[in-house]
């Protein structure tokens, strides 16, 4: 029956595309998580009244974050072509999408990280200082653990944005479900392929959201 509704869908191709989408998503989420936390910490710590208060450094990071967030993703991919070519020696395939995916979403996530860190009780940071904690200890044992639910729900939101970015990256030949939907579906007027790819992506998004909510709830003891 399914073959009647989806006559043109080749399941083997679907699984390959799904794998590529998941691959791009996982690696870029990981990269975004690390880069975003670094940038978010930098934004937070250099802000007024915080541990590394530094007005000029704060402004520089803020400008980088704001500018890169303002660039539409599809243009960012094109702008990063030379960089990607230099880094990976190719501008095609799932790997070639990664630099653009990470650069495109890390600044967005960095802002979410900053918001999460600001929510950490100042009194707890003060208590750690009063105990004689080093800045490093305050970052790794107070700031990050105390903001972890916000960091997790933030990366969930970002991951879902990243899934839709991977579909966009597909259009320029990165592979994945977006690529399949465009090349095999849209270009050949096979609407069933577009529909199947859409369903797969929606399911992936739901799974990510579910996992994110679950982890965030698990670790929140407030």
């Amino acid at each position: 029956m399914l073959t009647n509704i989806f006559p043109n869908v080749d399941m083997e191709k679907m699984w390959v595309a799904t794998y590529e989408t998941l691959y791009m998503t996982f690696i870029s989420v990981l990269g975004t998580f690390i880069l975003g936390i670094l940038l978010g910490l930098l934004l937070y710590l250099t802000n007024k009244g915080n541990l590394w208060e530094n007005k000029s450094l704060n402004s520089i990071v803020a400008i980088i974050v704001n500018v890169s967030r303002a660039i539409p993703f599809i243009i960012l991919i094109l702008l990063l072509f030379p960089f990607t070519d230099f880094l990976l020696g190719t501008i095609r395939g799932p790997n070639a999408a990664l630099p653009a995916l990470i650069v495109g979403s890390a600044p967005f996530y960095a802002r979410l990280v900053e918001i999460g860190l600001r929510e950490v009780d100042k009194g707890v940071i003060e208590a750690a200082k009063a105990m004689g904690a080093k800045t490093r200890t305050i970052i790794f044992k107070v700031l990050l653990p105390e903001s972890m639910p916000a960091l997790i729900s933030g990366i969930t939101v970002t991951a879902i944005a990243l899934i839709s970015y991977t579909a966009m990256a597909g259009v320029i030949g990165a592979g994945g479900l977006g690529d399949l939907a465009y090349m095999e579906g849209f270009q050949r007027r096979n609407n069933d392929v577009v529909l199947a790819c859409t369903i797969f992506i929606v399911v992936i998004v739901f799974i990510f959201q579910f996992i994110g909510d679950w982890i965030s709830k698990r670790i929140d003891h407030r």
Partner: protein
Amino acid sequence: MITINNLSKTFKTKDHTVQAVDDVSIDIEKGDIYGVIGYSGAGKSTFVRLINRLEDPTDGEIILNGQDMTDLSKAQLRLERQKIGMIFQHFNLLWSRTVYENIAFPLEIAGIPKANREEKVLELIELVGLKGRENSYPSQLSGGQKQRVGIARSLANDPKVLLCDEATSALDPETTDDILDLLVSINEKLDLTIILITHEMHVIQKICHRVAVMEQGHVVEQGDVLDVFMNPQSKTTKRFVQQLNPQEGSVEELKDFITSDERSKVVKLHFVGHNAKRALISDVSKQFDINVNILQGSISPTQEGAYGTLYVEFQGEPETIEDVMNYVKTTGVGVEVIDHVD
């Protein structure tokens, strides 16, 4: 043990400067429970934060065990802070850690290996009476229990001094008393010096040996709790003392008893320390041919003994009343004749 000389802190903003702490000098002996009381905005919180340099003083010195805190480098300051415990009004526990992990935190900071932490943490949990709650998260505890965790945490590195910044202000009266009892028992058991900031006179009365009264950044009065209570000099101190004895304010009600009759005298008696436990009134009425009419009285227990006041009317021959007053003076109880009410 702690000597504070001419300590000052000025906060500068664009438009104006605020002198939060102004030329404060205090001496605190080892094993003292030293209270600093003042209304909000008096600078007492800033003062206590200067001691472990959560705020950097503008001027003055803080000598703790012969070491001037203001001379320390950043790294030395971190080590010194490990030896100064601190508890807070809002407890400031890490919600992401269990009771056990919260208490172990200062040990982690001090670089004590994991294997050696357990014994200390369990000992502290026992000390503050939280046995069985090791694996609870702060959100599962009551306010009093949270402050117990705060106290255990502050004691983890065997501090010489404990700073309490409004440690009971967020607690209900009953829990406040429990926490104060715990502080006294720690003070006795560990011979720990405690510096306590509060706006509640009750706290000073219950556990402090000595007290400083702060107002607008200055210390307006300091000394033994009993002395300060008995003879409050400044207006602020008088207001605080009155909180303890609400009746003190109602001397007016004595008006009806004050007459020009030579055969009747209204007298205010001050009892301090051991005198408060004497059966003075029955003594007097047995020894002298006189009637004693008790009008009003109160007694306030403090760490250094009780102190109380009693208003009585003596009725009898003028000479006998004179004799009674002389007798009372010899017992060490303060006597004051009230012949008019302001």
